[in-house]
């Protein structure tokens, strides 16, 4: 469903088919819609068979990096006698991204079921669902659904009478984008500052509480029940393009389109049709100027790049950006890219956890230089300075927040040079007089 709009005939509603239906939020309503059959099936399966099924489906992480989910699960040790943990990443704070929120608001039991199946696969007794503090409504909906799942015996020390322990705890964040980074999230659950950890060790070796841990995004986990119910082959067959991009993806579209919202497409769906057909295109009299397709951390695309781009992992890379989280920001010709890039840089400067010099200083200086340019005090050499800074911020820090700040700056300067030139030519008269 292109929530809040009715399902468009060209969508493929798998995760979103019950969005907007209040009854789907309840245990009874969820069971009426086929809920918890997949969990019952998974309880009867060997953990490695669940992993094999998810591997064969081709499901990849929907949180941003697109790592194959089954493969990630297979990294978890077997028979090591240690407690294992699952973390469900519901921190959704990447500008442009608002799809996990709809999953939690409308189909909380889909997420609970997905977490439970993942727990069986990775042999984890407990899931911590980390929900960002600002998500008050999803938090309450999830709390209610979790209480119901416990009351119905779906969860607990003897989940569905299986003799297996499946527990879940909702942990509320308190305002820090960086806690969406997996190791920062583990620190935050442990009652620490949300600083990312140096890897290795990787979470599957030593994660939450020092124990083997898997972290998955809300949308990734919510996709698992359908895969178990309908089979890996069905899911793998959902693709309009590359065999490496399978299944459906929630794309949350915002900015200057007529119908912003969360749309579910089969991967490979033409980006142009998503914008013009599903979202109704630009406002009257406006034309497309730029698209950030995967949350603010990916490079900006030009209309030419959008033109023939399939919306999938490989296709978007081939057309100059990345699928990322699937948070799509659409900008029309009224947009000043320099201002928007400054605003994004300010976001990263605000959210940097400040433990790496290149990130702490780089995000702040990038913002300051862009602000100076916008104030009419820019110099032509500022562009080189920004590119040099961005280079120093890429691939040199503990996590990729720093790289994320550089992505829109570098792509912006290279692809939307006219906006920067226009900004530089708007030099304030007083400054001119001073030269």
């Amino acid at each position, binding site marked *: 469903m292109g929530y809040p709009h009715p399902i468009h005939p060209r969508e493929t509603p798998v995760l979103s088919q019950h969005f907007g239906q209040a009854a789907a939020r309840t245990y009874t309503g969820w069971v009426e819609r086929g809920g918890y059959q997949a969990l019952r099936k998974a309880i009867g399966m060997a953990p490695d068979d669940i992993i094999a099924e998810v591997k064969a489906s081709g499901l990849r992480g929907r949180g941003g990096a697109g790592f194959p989910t089954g493969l990630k699960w297979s990294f978890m040790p077997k028979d090591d006698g240690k407690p294992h943990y699952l973390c469900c990443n519901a921190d959704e704070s990447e500008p442009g991204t608002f799809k996990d929120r709809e999953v939690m608001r409308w189909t909380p039991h889909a997420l609970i079921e997905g977490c439970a199946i993942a727990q069986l696969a990775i042999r984890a007794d407990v899931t911590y669902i980390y929900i*960002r503090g600002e*998500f008050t409504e999803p938090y309450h909906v999830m709390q209610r659904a979790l209480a119901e799942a416990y009351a119905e015996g779906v969860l607990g020390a003897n989940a569905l009478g299986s003799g297996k322990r499946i527990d879940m705890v909702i942990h509320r964040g*308190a305002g*820090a984008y960086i806690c969406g980074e997996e190791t920062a999230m583990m620190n935050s*659950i442990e009652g620490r500052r949300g600083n990312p950890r140096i890897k290795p060790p990787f979470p599957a070796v030593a994660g939450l509480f020092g124990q083997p841990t898997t972290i998955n995004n809300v949308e990734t986990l919510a996709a698992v029940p359908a895969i178990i119910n309908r089979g890996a082959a069905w899911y793998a067959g959902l693709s309009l393009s590359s065999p490496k991009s399978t299944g459906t993806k929630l794309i949350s579209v*915002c900015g200057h389109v007529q119908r*912003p919202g969360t749309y579910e497409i089969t991967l490979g769906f033409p980006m142009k049709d998503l914008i013009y057909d599903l979202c109704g295109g630009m406002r009257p009299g406006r034309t497309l100027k730029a698209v950030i397709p995967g949350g603010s951390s990916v490079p900006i695309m030009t209309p030419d790049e959008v033109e023939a781009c399939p919306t999938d992992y490989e296709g978007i890379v081939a057309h100059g950006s990345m699928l990322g989280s699937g948070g799509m920001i659409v900008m029309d010709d009224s*947009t000043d890219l320099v201002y928007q890039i400054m605003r994004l840089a300010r*976001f990263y400067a605000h959210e940097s956890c400040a433990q790496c010099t290149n990130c702490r200083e780089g995000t702040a200086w990038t913002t300051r230089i862009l602000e100076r340019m916008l104030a009419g005090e820019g110099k032509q050499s500022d562009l080189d300075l920004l590119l040099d800074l961005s280079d120093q911020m890429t691939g040199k820090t503990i996590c990729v927040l720093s790289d994320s700040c550089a992505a829109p700056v570098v792509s912006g300067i290279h692809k939307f040079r006219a906006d920067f030139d226009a900004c530089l030519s708007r030099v304030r008269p007083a400054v001119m007089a001073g030269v």
Partner: protein
Amino acid sequence: MTAHGTTPHQPIFAGDVLAKLEALYPKYPDKRSVLLPALWLVQEARGWVSDDAVREVAERLDLTPSYVRGVLTFYTMYHKHPVGRHFIQVCTTSPCGMCGAEDVARTLVEHSGCGDLGATSPDGRFTVIEVECLGACGFPTPILIDDDFIESVTPERVPELLARYP
């Protein structure tokens, strides 16, 4: 507060709030992990997290006050100072910004009587702050008033919305 010194600290973790804290312990393998939820309980009960509250939390969780303060200051949603009776957060990050969020923020500041972002209105009723992406970018402009998440706020809607929060 008296003119000479402060009133003694009334424990926060008593009765219901203590019961809520104790219900958290079995959910985590150690007490330190209860810190974020414990700070939420404090804020729910008192509206902000005072130095006395920091000491009380530290004592309950076998941590030091400086450790608790170090964690507290990392997270922006905990109030380290008293705020207005109603706390308003408005998103002005790019996707909302390009759809008019800055006008909404300005209108909120004016109508609430706060005068400035981050300030509390003289009648103590409102505090308005600007925040980064609230995860609802398709519904510009989203704002939070206390725990109420409100979507698609326009400057025109501001007076009517504020009137709901006496």
